[in-house]
């Protein structure tokens, strides 16, 4: 073990450590809607200065805390693990807390809108109930038969790996609300629910695969997917959603999983 690592390895590190904040002026163009005031949504611009290393969430806080307290959005963890703040930023679904200003061209107005396909309740807040309902509908819990073992159920590292990717989901809805099929028909389960089902179907400990597959075989199930890859591109957890959906489709045909 050496200490050689501390020769400054990259200019990225030097950048990260430099505390000289060079502020830039940004314009945030936000889709506002408050049914207590009007039934029309409008665009509103906010201009202010910010360090481009900050997050879009920091910018929204700056607006809410310094400029307009009525701006409404959900957030909690501020580092991409709670799934509260999926929104459309410059036309793409992202988490506001995982998007740095410098990564989205601060020199042009930055547009922020609620995610699509779910009813807007106020500003960036949408009704998440249908989204969670679809998730609940796929029976997202381990189903087993027979007596419980006294110790843990065994699972090989390889079997564990089989469904690792889909365990990462934080239920942010970035995928489902970027899916054109879902926009057109809110009955479609949507990618997130299928991800939730995949996580159990491919878990070697689970015995409910058949039941879940039947649910997804429904007319609003996996067959509606048109493989547009919007979901995969939108997922802030980097889950290969389209691949997971394809695996579920294949399992429906072969009944092997």
């Amino acid at each position, binding site marked *: 073990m050496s200490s050689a690592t501390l020769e400054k390895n*990259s200019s*990225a590190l030097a950048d990260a450590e*430099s*505390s000289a904040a060079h502020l830039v002026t940004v314009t945030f163009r936000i889709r506002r809607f408050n049914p207590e005031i009007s039934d029309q949504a409008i665009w509103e611009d906010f201009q202010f200065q910010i360090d481009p290393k900050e997050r879009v969430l920091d910018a929204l806080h700056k607006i809410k805390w310094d400029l307009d307290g009525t701006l409404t959005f959900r957030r909690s963890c501020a*580092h991409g693990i709670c799934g*509260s703040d999926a929104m459309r930023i410059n036309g793409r679904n992202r988490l506001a807390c995982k998007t740095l200003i410098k990564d989205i061209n601060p020199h042009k107005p930055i547009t922020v809108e609620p995610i699509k396909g779910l009813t807007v309740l*106020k500003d960036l807040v949408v009704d998440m109930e249908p989204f969670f309902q679809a998730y609940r509908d796929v029976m997202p819990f381990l189903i087993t038969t027979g007596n419980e073992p006294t110790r843990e159920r065994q699972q090989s590292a390889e079997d564990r790996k089989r469904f*690792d990717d889909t365990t990462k989901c934080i239920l942010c809805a970035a995928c489902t609300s970027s899916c054109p099929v879902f926009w057109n028909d809110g009955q479609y389960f949507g990618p997130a629910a299928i991800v939730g089902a995949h996580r159990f179907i491919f878990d070697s400990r*689970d015995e409910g695969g058949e039941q879940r597959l039947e649910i997804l075989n429904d007319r609003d199930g996996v067959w509606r997917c048109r493989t547009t890859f919007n979901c995969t591109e939108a997922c802030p957890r980097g889950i290969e959603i389209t691949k997971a959906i394809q695996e579920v489709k294949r399992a429906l045909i072969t009944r092997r999983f």
Partner: protein
Amino acid sequence: MKIHKYDTVIVGAGGAGMRAAIESTKRSRTAVLTKLYPTRSHTGAAQGGMAAALANVEEDNWEWHTFDTIKGGDYLVDQDAAEILAKEAIDSVLDLEKMGLPFNRTPDGTIDQRRFGGHSRNHGEAPVRRSCYAADRTGHMILQTLYQNCIKEGVEFFNEFYVLDQLITEVDGVKRSAGVVAYELATGEIHVFQAKAVIYASGGCGKFFKVTSNAHTLTGDGQAAVYRRGLPLEDMEFFQFHPTGIWRMGILLTEGARGEGGILRNKDGERFMEKYAPVMKDLASRDVVSRSIYTEIREGRGCGPEGDHVFLDLTHLPPEQLDAKLPDITEFARTYLGIEPYTDPIPIQPTAHYAMGGIPTNVQGEVLADNDTVVPGLYAAGEVACVSVHGANRLGTNSLLDINVFGRRAGIAAAEYATKAEYVELPDDPASLVVEQVERLRDSTGTERVTEIRKALQETMDANVMVFRTEQTIKTAVEAIGALRERYLNVSVQDKGKRFNTDLLEAIELGNLLDLAEVMAVSALARKESRGGHYREDYPSRDDVNFMRHTMAYREVGADGVESIRLDYKPVVQTRYEPMERKY
């Protein structure tokens, strides 16, 4: 105003709340009120793991775990509770596995385990592999698994309901819990929940610090609600500063990174922990490592242009190991710092992390009204509570354990109580306090802004009651907080509406933070010793003669309406472990 009636009401849907809900829903009619959607709770942020002496990968037993917990807590731990924690750890991990939690596996298919700070073999001989984990998203997997099982059990949730008041009725001179009052975010409507049993599982209060690993929503609402009703808060001066937060942002980089072999280095590249903790080195307990980091910084060996941080070095670990074991935190470094942890060390500093103190309970989760009287019908579990299994300093991986062990216990105890007990009559006009609070803030034309007061609070807390404290710094904090509380009376919000008025709720949350910050500072001022997370430069050693006891802080309102804090003390439960000097 709407009135609801349930046997059991649970406040909070993090790990503790949902673990309790799974038990109590099976036994009693239960409602879970939560200000966040359950899966948004901060349990999901936990990374490193959950301790249990499974002995899957090397020799281990619950007695060693008990000892480490007590020693880690600098002997302020109630030893009976620690023993329960360590014993029930094993079943509580196995229960989660059976519920579906995808733990990482050993080559033989059992739950894999890794090292974590302060957990040792045979009373401190060497680090032991005790932490059960799922990559570096153990908390995420616990939260998901519990939520999934709540769906399976049909748990009834009231999402985005903020509990703002605890209802207490005195019956024959005994304070009993009658229910809670909640504010519905979507509509602004106020709801009274009458319940035979109430369980607080509303999490921590780290947002009174600026650099913190805690979510924006961790504002101590539960602690504040019961405190305001005259119930005590225990050991609030003990707050844990986790050694490795991302510099300036506070985002946590799990101790598991050091468990996997990561090393802390100063600007000379020196592995400085060797000096401070020759045996456990980088895996000494958190208070020790955080103080060591600040000592390096104060003595001029910090990194960066301002010498205000040190490095967490993972560059000697194989990229495959980082990808398999620490994917999320390496991703944080890339996203938020723009650096590649395969090749660059990560700038870190201690970050305010965990409240050891909270609402005092016994081992059944029953809330205490004083040193030994319980409040019938009132329970608490998780970070909001103080059992006390963490004493003056919590060991890593013992909180995910705590929420499961004591969440389950509280869920069972509350539901069993509720099935036998009668409803306690609601006080007259039960929602009055909340209605008054909401209306005052909404109608206020005051000139003070939430954001400025909150910023000032966080700055004074970081500057004065963080890793190093002295009489003078704490007094500065107490005065500053007092002045901010005055200013808070004159605060107003811009959003006057009913729907999703988060402006209003942030103002209410700030009020809670101010109350709790004051309790913390006042408790810290009175504790003239150093123990665990509470380090007084003017009293640098532990003083078992005068301070081997828990602080109990009560809110008092004088006849003139003036509020003050009264401090009392409660003995520590000691069973078999004699206090020793703590060395790592």
